């Protein structure tokens, strides 16, 4: 064991250290929960990989790795995360589901507030008349073509019931579905993604 360490040159020792660091960063990426930290870790993973490429006499690959892995991909991640910072809800029901006694104490508001706090999102409720006038059949089109994440309407089948409508491809929806199970008068409809031709 001692002979093994003595036989190593400085470059070889650096390479082993970097490989150990790579494994640690890989574990850290999996363990961490904060998105910003993960993006920085992914960038540093690429940086360490690039230094390993240089040690193995592949500077061309190293330049590509640095440019793609630690510049473009983290920036794209940052953009994608900053896009999903608010949760936009379109209120078509327009009754005491959201605003109760002129304050935000309605059943629906408390549910959505709990939900958006869970994901550290900013809850943004709108009842824009431009969207409000649209008919029920356009709800799916609204979720596809605008930035509205969730639409609240009255349940046509049940008295005093509400329907929440959102895209099935939105990963937040499964958590919301779980939270809605506790309420008898609220149900969630998830729209399947359609192809271009349909």
């Amino acid at each position, binding site marked *: 064991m001692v002979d093994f360490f003595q036989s190593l040159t400085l470059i070889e020792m650096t390479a082993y250290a970097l490989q150990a660091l790579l494994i640690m960063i890989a574990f850290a990426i999996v363990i961490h929960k904060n998105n910003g930290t993960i993006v920085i870790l992914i960038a540093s993973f690429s940086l360490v990989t690039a230094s390993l490429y240089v040690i193995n006499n592949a500077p061309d690959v190293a*330049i590509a790795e640095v440019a793609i892995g630690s510049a473009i991909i983290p920036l794209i991640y940052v953009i994608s995360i*900053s896009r999903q910072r608010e949760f936009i809800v379109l209120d078509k029901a327009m009754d005491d589901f959201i605003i109760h006694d002129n304050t935000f104490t309605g059943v629906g508001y408390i549910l959505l507030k709990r939900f958006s706090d869970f994901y550290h999102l900013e809850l943004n409720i709108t009842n824009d008349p431009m969207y409000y006038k649209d008919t029920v059949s356009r709800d799916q089109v609204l979720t596809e073509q605008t*930035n509205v994440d969730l639409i609240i309407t009255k349940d046509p089948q049940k008295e005093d019931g509400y329907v929440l409508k959102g895209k099935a491809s939105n990963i937040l929806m499964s958590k919301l579905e779980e939270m809605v199970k506790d309420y008898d008068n609220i149900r969630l409809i998830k729209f399947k993604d359609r192809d271009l031709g349909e």
Partner: protein
Amino acid sequence: MSRKILLVAMFAVLFGVFATSMIELETLFNTYGKTYFLEHGYAETGASNLVTAILLDYRLFDSLFEAGILLIAVSGVIWISKHDVEEKNAKFMIDKYKTPDLFITFARLVYPLMLAFGFYVIINGHISPGGGFQGGAIVATAILILYYIDANKETNIGLIVTVEKILYLLIVLMASISIITQGAFFTNFFNPSADADLKAIYLVLLNVLIGFKVALGLWTIFTAFLKEGR
């Protein structure tokens, strides 16, 4: 259950093939290619960077398809982030209040340097490490930084994609000129016995074309990301 058994069997076969190929590695391994490229690489292609010599001369046929992969990836990203036609040219970019002032000031300083370094890597691709793809990626990063400086920047995705396709056709044409001058596809259009400086013209031209194509392709990809979710 039968699927799982099939999967395990498949992995076993794959591992078996891999293991048997490793046993024959002693006989399969040879340094013929390495020594050939070291001895004849510079004389035949005029590139001191042997990676560029292989990418743009010996194995240009493979490189053309690599460039095509990016083209397909770009069209895939556009297709997934489909919007209405008039919405595609909308002005939605990074909201200015979300970008810190420090970042904007620093980006203003770094932007010209990044652009210059990208072009340096592209043009010197046949001498120093780098080349069209690496330089194009650096130029694309510089353009991405530009979006942080000017939040209201407008981009016409349709125009960028069209220019990218034209550049790809130009690369294929440039690579095919050698059928007229040399009688062989996908190699330098100068004679192999020509001066190394003369042959470098072809390498620089091809590197610049590939660099611009890659930069435009990556530009399209992150413009699609910027417009998503608004």
